[in-house]
């Protein structure tokens, strides 16, 4: 079907090669195609696609959909370290077998308010990431909703700031536990409590990983908002 006399719209239909064998030859002969020709290949293409209905060819929002899918995957990736850090800090409890005059013989996370805040903040961020998964899935299916993207960007940023604050406070206490402080006469307790120290240090590292992923999510959301 050659519609070579159509000067208004220039649309280049992408024909499915398996469906119409003569289609590439027809498109190479005449560049502007009739508007009536466009629905016919689309109707021929649509029933053949199974599994992923939204990655149709000729989809205008394909770039936004890719970014939204990446956003979804990264959210799942960020949930792991946050939950692991919360659990590892929450179950940190070490009792020493020795007992000296100056040291207490037991260390738990709630002896240090910074670790308590750290555990609570990680639990909040892990819960938020799980709850924001459906919203991110909606963005994959309908990439043109800007308001939802803006909401996710603001919430991601607030959660990133909260988690950075908690991770930095816990890192300050962990650094003090490892090195002590000569001026203030604060003894390094990691000499005695090995397991407690290792566990909390590992949780702080995991939490910083979540912060990096959350910051990347914020950048991704602002790229998608600009792109639309």
């Amino acid at each position, binding site marked *: 079907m050659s519609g070579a006399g159509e000067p208004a719209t220039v649309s280049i239909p992408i024909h499915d090669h398996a469906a119409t064998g003569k289609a590439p030859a027809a498109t190479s002969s005449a560049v502007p195609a009739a508007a009536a020709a466009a629905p016919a290949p689309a109707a021929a293409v649509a029933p053949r696609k199974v599994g992923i209905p939204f990655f149709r060819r000729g989809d205008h929002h394909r770039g936004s959909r890719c970014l939204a899918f990446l956003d979804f995957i990264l959210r799942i990736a960020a949930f792991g370290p946050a939950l692991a850090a919360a659990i590892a800090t929450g179950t940190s409890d070490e009792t020493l077998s020795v007992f000296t005059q100056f040291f207490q013989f037991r260390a738990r996370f709630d002896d240090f308010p910074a670790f308590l805040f750290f555990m609570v903040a990680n639990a909040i961020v892990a819960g938020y990431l799980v709850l924001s998964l459906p919203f991110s899935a909606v963005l994959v299916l309908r990439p043109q909703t800007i308001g939802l993207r803006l909401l996710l960007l603001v919430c991601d940023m607030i959660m990133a700031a909260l988690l950075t604050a908690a991770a930095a406070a816990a890192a300050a206490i962990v650094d003090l536990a490892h090195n002590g402080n000569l001026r203030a006469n604060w003894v390094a307790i990691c000499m005695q409590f090995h397991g407690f120290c290792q566990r909390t240090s590992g949780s702080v590292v995991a939490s910083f990983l979540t912060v990096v992923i959350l*910051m990347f999510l914020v950048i991704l959301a602002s790229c998608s908002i600009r792109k639309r």
Partner: protein
Amino acid sequence: MKESVEHGETSSKAPLSKGVSKGVSILDVILRFVAIIGALASAIAMGTTNQTLPFFTQFIRFKAQYNDLPTLTFFVVANSIVCAYLILSLPLSIVHVIRSRAKYSRLILIFFDAAMLALVTAGASAAAAIVYLAHKGNVRANWLAICQQFDSFCERISGSLIGSFATMVVLVLLIFLSAIALARR
């Protein structure tokens, strides 16, 4: 249909939406000034701490400065970096007031604002943890509260946290404003 409405908006530029864009950009500049003042005040207040006690006992040193505690050093450095960045980004946001059709510069501004938000939040909250420890001590780890001896040092390091947290809140607002400006284009 949505694209045709947006195309009509950008081509005719209704005065109300143009005024709102300009207002957002002007608010961006004002908030940047506020954040500069907050970060600078915090860095200076923490950096000029120096208290010497008149007496000297066997266990406690008699002089306290901010660089006796590495976390407070990090706080001063982080606030200085954020202050310098905000001063350098002030021309860019003034350009946004004049020409509000910038495409990539707002994205770059959001990227660096997010990085600086992470930095200032980390510095402020690590210093807050140490200041809390200085006020209350820790019974389990046998860490004494040094504020009993160094009260003016303690007051100063506690007060300098306020400016830093204000800078953090303002940076959150700045990123939000930039995102709104991106979405309105």
